[in-house]
């Protein structure tokens, strides 16, 4: 029997706003499968986003959903989680929202290791505003504001998350749909800040400018560059040139923030300083 997405989708809210060929819908489905696999209760799950195409995702999911201001998802979500640690808090959003305007909140949520799961759809571009370059747009690629090629170096979101202190960091691609739900589910189960970067595509504002002939070509590129971490262990540096590792990239055990604050409460109540 085919998977029933309807039970997590809000009635009457589809069709979504995303363009044909956009990978965000693939991520939405992966997220729903992940939630279902863990049997998450909808009323006990908050999905928080910022601004941008990817940040429209919460509107379609029948949970407690919070579409915040540009870049602020991680900070709003931190408030939700601190106030109600029993809730599942999942963040979704894009690369610009999460790592440019929201970069500070992102790294500090990682540093605190607060028990939230952040699914970042990285399509290398600000799609909603028409294709301006983002912190993940590769060097020399074209965007509406890099007409002569992007002079900026780019962020590696997964490395950024690891460096900032996230304790579960994984990467998947919109091409490998069946892996997405597994990575997200593992992230949700992990006690601490988990970051799942999904390499995505934006045929409308990125593909067109950068001479991708079709969505299929963009998806094929994702397929070609992705190398599972296990497979990479057997590859030479030369073979890994231009490749991007996928799968669970980092996992660590470190005190979780809400649990640490619970200890503060106990110390305060006990009269200790």
């Amino acid at each position: 029997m085919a998977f029933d997405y309807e039970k997590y989708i809000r009635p009457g809210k589809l069709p979504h706003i995303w363009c044909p060929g956009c990978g965000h819908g693939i991520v939405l489905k992966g997220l729903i499968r992940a939630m279902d696999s863990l049997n998450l209760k909808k009323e006990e799950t908050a999905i928080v986003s910022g601004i941008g195409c990817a940040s429209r995702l919460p509107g379609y999911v029948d949970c407690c959903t919070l579409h915040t201001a540009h870049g602020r998802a991680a900070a709003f979500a931190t408030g939700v989680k601190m106030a109600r640690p029993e809730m599942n808090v999942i963040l979704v959003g894009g690369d610009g929202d999460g790592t440019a305007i929201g970069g500070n909140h992102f790294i500090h949520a990682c540093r605190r290791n607060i028990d939230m799961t952040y699914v970042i759809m990285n399509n290398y571009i600000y799609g909603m505003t028409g294709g301006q370059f983002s912190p993940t747009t590769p060097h020399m690629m074209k965007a509406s504001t890099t007409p002569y090629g992007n002079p900026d170096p780019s962020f590696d979101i997964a490395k950024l998350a690891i460096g900032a202190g996230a304790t579960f960091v994984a990467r998947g691609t919109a091409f490998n749909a069946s892996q997405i739900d597994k990575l997200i589910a593992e992230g949700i189960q992990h006690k601490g800040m988990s970051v799942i970067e999904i390499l995505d595509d934006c045929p409308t504002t990125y593909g067109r400018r950068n001479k991708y002939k079709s969505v299929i070509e963009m998806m094929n590129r994702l397929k070609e560059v992705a190398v599972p971490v296990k497979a990479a262990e057997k590859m030479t540096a030369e073979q890994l040139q231009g490749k991007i590792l996928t799968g669970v990239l980092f996992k660590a055990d470190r005190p979780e923030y809400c649990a640490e604050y619970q200890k503060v409460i106990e110390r305060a109540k006990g009269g200790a300083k």
Partner: protein
Amino acid sequence: MSKKVAFLQGNEAAAQGALYAGCNFFAGYPITPSTEVAEVMSIELPKVGGKFIQMEDEIGAYAAVLGAALTGKKALDATSGPGLSLKQELIGYACIAEIPCVLINVMRGGPSTGMPTGPSQSDVMAAKWGTHGDHASITLVPASVQECYDMTVQAFNLAEKFRMPVLVMPDEIIAHMRERIEFREPGEIEIINRTEPTVPPAEYKPYDTRFGDVPPLAAFGSGYKFHVTGLNKMQDGFPTTKAEIVQAEEERQVRKVMDKVDEIVDFEEFKMDDAEICVVAYGSTSRSARYAVNAAREKGIKVGMFRLKTFWPFPDKQIKAIAAKVKGFVVPEMNLGMCSVEVERCNEGKAQILTVNRVDGEPLNPEQILVKIKEVK
């Protein structure tokens, strides 16, 4: 049993008032001259099982407050000028999404970094006009340490009652000076809690106007699922661009406050019965004004004071009535003319208006006001 009294700073009293009101969540970012609010909350909140978090920046602090408020918490943030500027986008978010919360903004010199330890009253316009878009503002301006306590309680009540952000704005003098205060007994001030929905979750809409201009707000995690956005929204919380819905919702968000102006606006009239001159003052400046009014009365000048306790909504009706009676207004402020602009608007050209303005980081003293009182013709 006698009441608990203490000798506290304005900031400390504001934090105690928040606790009395039932505040159980604080997020903030260190900034002079408001930091004592955060310090007290960091000590007191965990003792009662509340949560305190120091965020990575001013915007994050207010965002965390909004997130917590949506889970049903009574949430507080405290800041000063530069922080108020940074939070403005999210103050607008709280207005459109209709999220109750309180922000204490201690006024220091500006613009920009200005004078971090110097007093000022130059944020009063930013309190209303700082965020973009149309919205109502409720802003309270305490003039004593006791009022820092009481008005913070009142701010939480107003936030919950009108489902919106409320500001408490002491100037640096009020925030840092110390006076004796009385802690309120339980029940002494009524505590207003959020109106929760009565409909079952399946029928719940977060902006359901069948329940009036201030629809009930459910809490995330309480069994209700709903959507919150900063986009113009429909009654079910989902975005819309339908003209008639956007117009109606925008108007309701302002109307819910402006229809209740008489209930919200609080003020004090001092020696106004036979006054021919009215000093309009607020915050620490009103203390200088009271001194000056007494001094002028001793010289036989018929002068009184109208003290704003609510800066927004502005007491239009009261100022208009006074304008019809007096020959002149004196408006002393630690800014270059903000309240005086509002007084001018309400005055409608009737009485003379003299201003006393000071922005050098020093308190505006009674003598300066007295000089102006004598100049009224």
